């Protein structure tokens, strides 16, 4: 960007809780994610809740990255402005990738499923629950043998409960089947790899059966 142009942040996603902008950041492509306040909440209470969410999101991003799972590097946290500055991931969402390449061939499907499962396995073994596992919240870095990047820890939390981890997987299953038809075998491949690659995987998968049963009931009756 030439020096004469005043720098700007450019909105790329307006969500219900947060806005995401790309921003020039000392020569590195970056994004800034701003969690905005809820007008209907009491201002001081809201400030506390918002900054707790911001801290939680940044912490989870960083803890998982340290454990070897690819996430955007956190550059800076501004609690007053409820913003997180982080590395811009040059790549595409798993969602767009699947839409662009469907049907996935068998080998490719297995590779992608294994990458996803490994990341989720490490995350769950650290007792971190993502809270919003969709294919939009997973990215693949550009380039050969792209690394899988988990993003959007805005709803993440720490939990040792098998149930919470099972619900995490269930959310992913529902998200997959609603955005991508015919992905049953893909999800099954994720589960198989998850069982193999995470320490606490087996009980989580067992619990997933219960969660699915309850989920089906809920949809059937309500």
């Amino acid at each position, binding site marked *: 960007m030439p020096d004469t142009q005043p*720098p*700007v*942040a450019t909105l790329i996603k307006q969500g219900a809780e947060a806005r995401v902008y790309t921003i020039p950041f000392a*020569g590195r492509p970056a994004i*800034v994610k701003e969690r905005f306040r809820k007008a209907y909440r009491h201002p001081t209470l809201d400030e506390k809740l918002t900054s707790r969410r911001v801290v939680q999101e*940044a*912490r989870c991003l960083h803890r998982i*990255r340290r454990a070897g799972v690819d996430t955007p590097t*956190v550059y800076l946290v*501004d609690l007053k402005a409820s913003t997180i500055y982080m590395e811009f991931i040059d790549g595409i969402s798993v969602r767009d990738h699947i839409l662009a390449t469907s049907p996935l061939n068998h080998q490719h499907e297995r590779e992608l499923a294994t990458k996803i499962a490994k990341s989720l396995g490490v995350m769950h073994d650290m007792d971190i629950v993502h809270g919003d596992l969709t294919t939009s919240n997973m990215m693949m870095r550009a380039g050969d043998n792209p690394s899988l990047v988990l993003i959007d820890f805005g709803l993440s939390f720490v939990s040792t409960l098998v149930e919470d981890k099972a619900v995490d997987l269930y959310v992913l299953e529902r998200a997959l089947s609603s955005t991508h038809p015919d992905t049953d075998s893909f999800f099954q491949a994720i589960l198989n790899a998850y069982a193999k690659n995470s320490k606490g995987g087996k009980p989580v998968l067992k619990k997933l059966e219960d969660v699915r049963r309850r989920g089906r009931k809920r949809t059937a009756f309500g």
Partner: protein
Amino acid sequence: MHPIPLPPLFAPPPADVPLATVPLAGDGSPPYVMYIQPFTDVQNAAEVKKLLMAGDPRVPEMTLVDASNILDIFQLQLACTKALLSQRDNTMTTRTLYAEILFNLCPTNKISEAFRKFGIADTSTAVLAVMVGQQPPSAEIQNMLATLIKGTPVGVDSVPGLADVKAVNKIFKLGSGQRTRNETLSLVIGTMALKGIMS
């Protein structure tokens, strides 16, 4: 000294005003810039440190960083930016902006440790002089610096080569796993960003 821009801070617009682009130049005042001068073959680190600690008038206001724990000037840029942010919010841990910069470089919350591990030491041979301002340091200040430090002024590009990756791994408790330098830098940057809000 070499001017290095600092990342601009983002002031969120009101929640009910969704702007497609948000200007970052803020209040119209000139942006803060980091001015850095690396020195190698420094021969009088102990003496410089003594003068610095004594607040000697021959020492300009600045942070003097031992180069061995700096993988990339990005670490310094973020330490400066964070210090300016804390100054804005009145949440500085130390008493001056320049002490705060040193504090921000260190993963732990002990000021003395930050000085010991990141500040100039008696044995330092490569040193980075860092200043922050809205305009460049005056010729007078630059002369003071050149007179103070007996060493070879070098370009900013030499900074990565002055680092000791092993020492960085140790200070940031990164273990000794195989990792690219970029990955190490990412973990360092993330750890700095999360300092004070990690647990």
